């Protein structure tokens, strides 16, 4: 019983990690209707930037804020320089650009920062809450921060005109232009926001996973799965999806099939969910009329 509780709680903690990156994926999807493979590497880069700033002496929260701003700028820059040349071409070209970015960033961080793992400071106290041994304070912090980001994101997309403009551009860029929306700015904004969300994810995740160039490689697949299980256009769904994936994965590995096939079974379950609800649990079902 105790172990089950442990598995579920650590599943929630890991799930929060997936959820935080999944939010960045949802943001990019809202903007471009594509899943960005380079999101994980961007988040890792942001975490390294934050780590360097902290090592240079900046206090934690200043470094945090600075990294978010820098990541936002980097996201906009990437959209302008890397993505702009291929918009309008076949969709798969954009996917290849994502893959190219992923390879470049991964190799770059390895080259600049080396491959030995680094500890990353946590803003939350070291002592576990109420002296419990099931879930650490930082893990609870990740869940809290992810929820805050979720609320902000949801509020932004649903209730602000900028958010509406973003969604309009993703749905139909020609119509948006006719209505007077600056499409290029919206695309840049979307990318910047996604990079910023990814930066938050990276900074939150690094204390748990330890910082190294391959930190997000494993997380990306689960974040991708989480976003889709929840419904790729639903931020709330992505978070719930993340938590679900984390718990299911742990429970499957501990009780159902053993750790040797944990990854496979977890993924198969996810696909199973998608087959039953092809648009994800909370996604919008698109009906095509002839």
């Amino acid at each position, binding site marked *: 019983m105790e172990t089950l509780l442990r598995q579920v709680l650590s599943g929630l903690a890991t799930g929060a990690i997936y959820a935080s990156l999944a939010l960045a994926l949802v943001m990019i999807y809202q903007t471009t209707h594509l899943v960005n493979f380079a999101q994980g590497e961007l988040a890792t880069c942001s975490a390294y930037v934050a780590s360097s700033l902290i090592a240079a002496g900046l206090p934690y929260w200043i470094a945090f804020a600075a990294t978010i701003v820098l990541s936002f700028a980097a996201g906009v820059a990437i959209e302008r320089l890397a993505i702009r040349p291929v918009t309008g071409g076949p969709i798969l070209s954009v996917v290849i650009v994502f893959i190219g970015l992923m390879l470049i960033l991964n190799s770059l961080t390895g080259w600049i920062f080396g491959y030995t793992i680094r500890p990353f400071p946590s803003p939350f106290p070291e002592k576990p809450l109420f002296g419990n041994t099931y879930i650490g304070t930082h893990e609870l912090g990740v869940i809290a921060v992810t929820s805050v980001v979720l609320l902000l994101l949801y509020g932004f997309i649903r209730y602000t005109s900028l958010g509406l403009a973003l969604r309009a551009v993703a749905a139909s860029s020609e119509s948006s232009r006719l209505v007077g929306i600056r499409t290029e700015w919206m695309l840049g904004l979307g990318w910047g926001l996604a990079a910023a969300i990814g930066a938050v994810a990276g900074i939150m995740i690094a204390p748990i996973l330890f910082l190294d160039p391959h930190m997000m490689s494993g997380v990306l697949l689960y974040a991708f799965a989480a976003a889709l299980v929840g419904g790729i256009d639903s931020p709330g769904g992505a978070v719930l999806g993340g938590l679900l994936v984390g718990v299911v994965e742990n429970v499957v590995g501990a009780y159902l099939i053993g750790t040797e096939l944990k990854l496979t079974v977890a*993924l198969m379950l996810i696909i199973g969910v*998608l087959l039953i609800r092809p648009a994800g649990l909370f996604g919008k079902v698109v009906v095509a009329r002839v």
Partner: protein
Amino acid sequence: MMRPRSLAPIALLRHRPAVPVISALALGAAVLLPFVVSDYRAFEVTQVIIQAIALLGLNLLTGYNGQISLGHGAFYATGAYTAAILMSRFDVAYWLTLPCAAVVCLGVGFSFGWPALRLESSYLALATFALGVSMPQVLKYKHLAPWTGGVQGLTLDKPEAPWGLPISPDQWLYFFCLAIMVVLFACARTFLRGHAGLSVQAIREHPVAAAAVGIDVPMYKALTFGISAMYAGIAGALSAMSVQFVSPDSFAALLSVTFLVGIVVGGLSSVSGAIYGSIFIQFAPKVASDVSKAAPGVVYGLVLLGSVYLMPLGIAGGLKRLAELVRERARGMSRKRRRSHV
């Protein structure tokens, strides 16, 4: 003046004399190749040929049918392991393993493609990516280890040239793979030209309209998945024989991503694009490593980005445009010449 049809080849020679000559030369070069280069180069070109077969399979699915697959490495691995298990555990002759691998992968691909019909683009991408990522884990599974060799993999012997031909195993394998590639490419071309192929492409363009016209969309989509997996499986079987070793680490998730890169850079919806793509994914990483040991990924990524920016329709598209430009230029000049004769 009416040109009788029997004179058509002559007409071709007059208007485009280069084409049959180039074809003959190219074929001749391909056949002569293993005799003028070392065994190692023949082996390397064999790898290019094998990958081209896998890329053509993926192109049929993703380029022509519009279903994105990030898991073709799994079908490649299935074919490879089928051949390896048959050869090492059951002593089956190498050439016999090919039809077996083909059938197995056709079945696996179809069974995966049928339920996957319900999934659209990103969701299908995830499902196929999940397949590609899970494959190594399944291959390592201890209860399958008596067959698959588990984490250690299986070592195979290279097939010898039959009928006592005085050529090395590498040269023989080169011709074997070349012949299979020519056959499979010709089949693909015929398929794509025919009714089935046109239906497949129609589904990519507008699935609802295709259904309205009477095309059995689910059957075609699943069938294309199966055929595409079959191509990848045959390629995998050939690679097992060629490299003489299979292991779970040979078929990591990155392989599927590499295949996708190959067809996009080579040229989607283009049969010859598979060959260009194969050349790219074979040599570009090597060039990148030569340029930089510290960060080869950066160089390779930049090359990748460059290729996509400069040639959005792939190398095949780029070459087609180049050929058109040349033809325009030539037509313009001959028009000028004719005018000046007046």
